[in-house]
């Protein structure tokens, strides 16, 4: 069950996040696993406690999956929280990972949705070692 990622795999993930999310205007993109480990952080999270964000996001996602089960859903594929200036978007990546995207009010949610869907498809083979 342990995850080991090579330098190449990490570089590939970094490339995907930079290319699709940061270039689209996201402030920050993080990949975490569902036990709360922080796998990759991109963007400028200067004042952001990314380790705590990873742990809390994993827990939040876990709690939300339980809610999904209660209402007869398997899981929710994404979560979105809207703030005054900053928004946060969570996407499920495969069974074991979560992609977290932070973006400001000048970036549209539609664009982020489109990009995260694309990123998710690219990340799964890297994370499962099929690339």
């Amino acid at each position: 069950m342990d995850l080991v990622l090579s330098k190449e795999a990490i570089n590939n993930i970094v490339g995907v996040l930079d290319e699709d999310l940061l270039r689209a205007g996201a402030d920050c993109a993080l990949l975490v696993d569902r036990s709360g480990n922080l796998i990759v952080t991109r963007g400028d999270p200067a004042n952001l406690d990314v380790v705590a964000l990873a742990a809390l996001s994993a827990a939040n996602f876990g709690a939300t999956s339980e809610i999904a089960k209660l209402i007869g859903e398997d899981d929710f594929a994404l979560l979105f929280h809207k703030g005054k200036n900053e928004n946060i978007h969570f996407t499920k990546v495969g069974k074991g990972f979560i992609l977290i995207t932070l973006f400001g009010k000048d970036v549209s949610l539609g664009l982020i949705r489109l990009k995260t869907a694309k990123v998710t498809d690219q990340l799964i083979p890297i994370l499962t070692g099929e690339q």
Partner: protein
Amino acid sequence: MSFIDLSKNEVQCKVVYYGPGRGGKTTNLLYVHQAMTEAVRGKMVTIDTKGDRTLFFDFLPLALGKIQNLSIKIQLYTVPGQVMYNATRKLVLKGVDGVVFVADSLKVQKEKNVESLDNLRQNLAEDNIDIGEIPLVLQYNKRDLGGSNIPILSVEEMEEDLNNRLQVPWFTGSALKGDGVFETLREISKRTVKQVSRKLLSR
């Protein structure tokens, strides 16, 4: 689930403090937090606390230096001990690499300790983890109450109740005063990292 990042030569593992309500899990983390320098520990996150009862979890990330070439990062979590929060405990237990079971030395908590250990065994089994296989350390907490007028369990009795079959390392402690806190942490870290690297080598 541990995560090994070969681009940074870093391993991240998850250690969960488990045990009956009010046993001293949060107090263990608070002690570690205040005793360690900022270079070693990150920010402690305590969410959803009602009085001093944990409702979701506490979280404390530590950077424990290097073993051979590998930087060791350990994330400490506590679960809510109260019986009714089992769904939350399962959630926090997800991907666990090592467990500290904090048992309460108060005589009145004798059964609660056993129940909580059984609950741990069951919750791990649901995730296909055998309690006999995962790194596990017991802490018999609140030993400072020995000699007060509050009846406490003898260490022999706690060993008999909790560790008879498991035969795992155990420590007496007083999380409130800090006794045994680092001994417990050191042992679980050592065992967890060893198990993770064993799995890594056998890949």
